[in-house]
């Protein structure tokens, strides 16, 4: 932790600033009009819906917001290490409860909303904490007792108890994104689609069902982008998007999922295909309060019955990774030492079911009618039938699915927790009692709270890593949740895109990108 307190001086924004310096020279030499616009076109699979950090969810919204807003700190896109953003340095008191941040001077809000100060930080966090805001992320800042602003460039966060993972909650994502007090107050009800930030791009317009346009912020503190604007174009069909990318009608293909299209783009000329392990797994969440599922032997039998490798190699044609816990390789805190694994072993599954004296077990997997979640549970149900469990799959349209799941009245469901590389994101969401329905702890697991609190109290990264390891061992032993696969993110871009970095979130951020030959 000590080595982290002095934030590393070097970050990608300075790389960006360096690159910008070179191109700016050229830009000043000729009128911008003569150069033409340097527009980057990015494919989105679906439309955006809201850009207010207190209520934001869904990858497309978060992708847009990541260009507009900054946090006190941010995840380095490449390494997931926490690096400076609006704060230049910070100190933690000896007892770990007072966090003091020095803020970057001369940062201004988009569209003449004035200077960024510590008061905006105070406003942003208090807004998330205020129950009237109805923020999804209130729980993330739960331990934050008081926010002091001794001067415009200093903000002091007082916690009710030490939390070594607190920096994760302040990273530029969701509740970590800082908003302007003046902008939120003045714009009011319609702020959600008229966001004001400090980031490299400003919100220009949203054409419903069609596209979102951002324009470069010329006074961005990290140096203005060499792009003039970015258009996020909604192209629902993946094949059409692939052809548009090959034709040069698009520059970046985001949210690439279909194995067929991935194959096609891998073979295409002049297309760069990127992939990276994601922060999330897809899981079968078992309701540990219902029927035979109360018996841990039955849950283990199911894990042995599921041929998860065949699912990955066959159904997904190798476009996913195996998962041994709900944390993936992208988390700095991951340690899988001693965590129980469940190999595909139908005989062992049958033996465990006999031992638990279970017969005629009717088991239903509830899942959402979105590709691929509506289809991959089918081979899994088949695996379960092979060992004598009468498994069926119930596919619900998303609205009905969310309602069924949040009622808690399902035997099992398919859940993927997409979020930042903060281990609390999947662990609290899936295992903490505070996430019992309507939250995502549909298994109603109740033995993780103490360990999660202990991880927060641990003094440093190795300490937290050790506690999380114990938690993974315990939860994979109790098995309220069976991880099915670890997600893998695919993305493709055309020949003119330079400097793009793919992150392990389910978002796309083009801030460091420039266009070759434009």
């Amino acid at each position, binding site marked *: 932790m000590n080595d982290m307190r002095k934030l590393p001086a070097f970050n990608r924004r300075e790389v960006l600033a360096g690159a910008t310096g070179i191109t700016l020279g050229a830009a000043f030499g000729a009128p911008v009009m003569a150069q033409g616009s340097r527009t980057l076109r990015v494919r989105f699979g679906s439309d955006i819906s809201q850009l207010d950090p207190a209520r934001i969810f869904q990858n497309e919204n978060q992708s847009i917001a990541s260009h507009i807003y900054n946090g006190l700190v941010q995840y380095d896109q490449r390494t997931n290490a926490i690096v400076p953003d609006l704060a230049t340095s910070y100190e933690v008191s000896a007892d770990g409860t007072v966090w003091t941040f020095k803020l970057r001077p001369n940062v201004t809000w988009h569209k003449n909303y004035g200077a960024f100060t510590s008061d905006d930080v105070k406003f942003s966090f208090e807004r998330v904490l205020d129950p009237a805001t*109805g923020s999804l992320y209130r729980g993330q800042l739960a331990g934050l007792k008081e926010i002091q602003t001794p001067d415009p460039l200093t903000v002091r966060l007082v916690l009710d108890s030490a939390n070594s993972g607190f920096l994760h909650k302040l990273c530029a994502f969701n509740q970590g994104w800082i908003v302007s007090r003046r902008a939120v107050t003045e714009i009011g009800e319609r702020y959600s689609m008229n966001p004001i930030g400090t980031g490299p791009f400003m919100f220009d317009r949203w054409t419903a069902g069609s596209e979102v346009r951002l324009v470069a912020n010329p006074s961005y503190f990290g140096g203005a982008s060499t792009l003039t604007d970015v258009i996020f174009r909604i192209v629902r069909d993946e094949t059409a998007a692939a052809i548009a990318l090959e034709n040069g009608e698009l520059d970046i293909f985001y949210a690439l999922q279909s194995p067929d299209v991935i194959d096609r783009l891998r073979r295409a000329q002049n297309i760069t295909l990127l992939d990276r392990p994601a922060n999330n797994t897809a899981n079968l969440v078992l309701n540990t309060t219902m029927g035979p599922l109360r018996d841990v032997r039955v849950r283990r039998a199911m894990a042995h019955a599921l041929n998860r490798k065949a699912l990955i190699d066959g159904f997904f044609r190798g476009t996913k990774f195996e998962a041994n816990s709900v944390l993936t390789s992208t988390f700095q805190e991951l340690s899988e030492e001693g965590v129980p694994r469940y190999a595909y072993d139908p005989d062992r599954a049958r033996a465990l079911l006999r031992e638990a004296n279970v017969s005629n077990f009717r088991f239903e997997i509830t899942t959402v009618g979105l590709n691929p979640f509506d289809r991959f549970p089918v081979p899994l149900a088949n695996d379960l039938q092979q060992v004598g469990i009468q498994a069926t799959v119930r596919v619900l349209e998303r609205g009905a699915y969310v309602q069924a799941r949040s009622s808690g009245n399902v035997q099992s469901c398919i859940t993927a927790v997409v979020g930042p590389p903060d281990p609390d994101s999947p662990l609290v969401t899936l295992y903490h009692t505070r996430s019992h329905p309507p939250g995502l702890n549909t298994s109603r697991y109740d033995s993780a709270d103490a360990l999660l609190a202990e991880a927060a109290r641990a003094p440093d990264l190795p300490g937290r890593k050790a506690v999380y390891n114990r938690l993974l061992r315990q939860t994979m032993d109790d098995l309220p949740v069976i991880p099915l696969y670890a997600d893998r993110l695919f993305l493709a871009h055309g020949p003119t895109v330079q400097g793009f970095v793919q992150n392990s979130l389910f978002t796309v951020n083009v801030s460091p990108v420039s266009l070759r030959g434009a």
Partner: protein
Amino acid sequence: MVFYIARCAGQFAVALVGIVTVAFFLMRAIPGDPALYMLGDFATPEALATLRARLGLDLPVWQQYGIFLARALQGDLGMSVVTGEPALAEILASVPSSASLAVAGMAIAIAVGVPLGVIAAVRQGSVVDVAVMLIALLGISFPVFWVGITAILLLSHALGLFPALGATSEPGFWKGLHHLALPALVLGLSVAAYIARLTRSAMLEVLGQDHIRVARAMGVPEWRIVWKLALRNALVPVLAVIGVTFAWSLGNAILVEAVFSRPGLGSTILKAVLARDYQLLQAGVLVLAAAVVLLNTVLDLLYGAIDPRLRQQ
């Protein structure tokens, strides 16, 4: 005449209120909850209660309906639950895209379907007839998204004639038309298949009637008999289908819109249903219903123009 217009306006209003009322209660009868949708994966009982109260979802349904109706009468269809933007504005923004696709598609459908149907009828049983009907059968049978992707692969990717994305935000009529061409072609040809079959059967029926036989006996030129006397009568049922299909393609060209990445009324309404965005859905249904009812009124007047017998009734 005043009476006629008043009657039309009255029917129009009753139809709209009826459709919107059905949509209002149907939407609330299906499982799902906008507050849950918006809170996503992090719903807590407390956040749910706050949001439901803010959206007015904690009131009884009949009370919500009363509020909705009272506001709608003042022209206020509310804000989209999800985006906080005016619902009507978002719906109206998607109308030009839908309308241009429907108009262009219908123009292609008529230009291709009617002549093919006539030729097939005149040459009944010939190779031309069999070929036209076979192509029409294929046109009806192939799903439009398959035809769409094939068209993109062939005409956009292999031949480079049209862009793969069927819409653009760049200004310029010709540019817009260039982007519109491929989706309009795909939509138009699928409808042309229906129109060709229908025109053929209507023409066959008319060509066998007495007045045609009389005209032939009187030595009226054959082209005049076919394209003027017979076609005019055969067009009445065809026109009915064109009207229905046009209304259909305004709201239901969702697959074409999806394949060609176009915004549209149908896609927006679908999105509203999926997100349980009640306000947006209500605005969408209202606009779509108004368009369909209006279209039918115009069609009624057109029948009169084509068939004098209907005018007298």
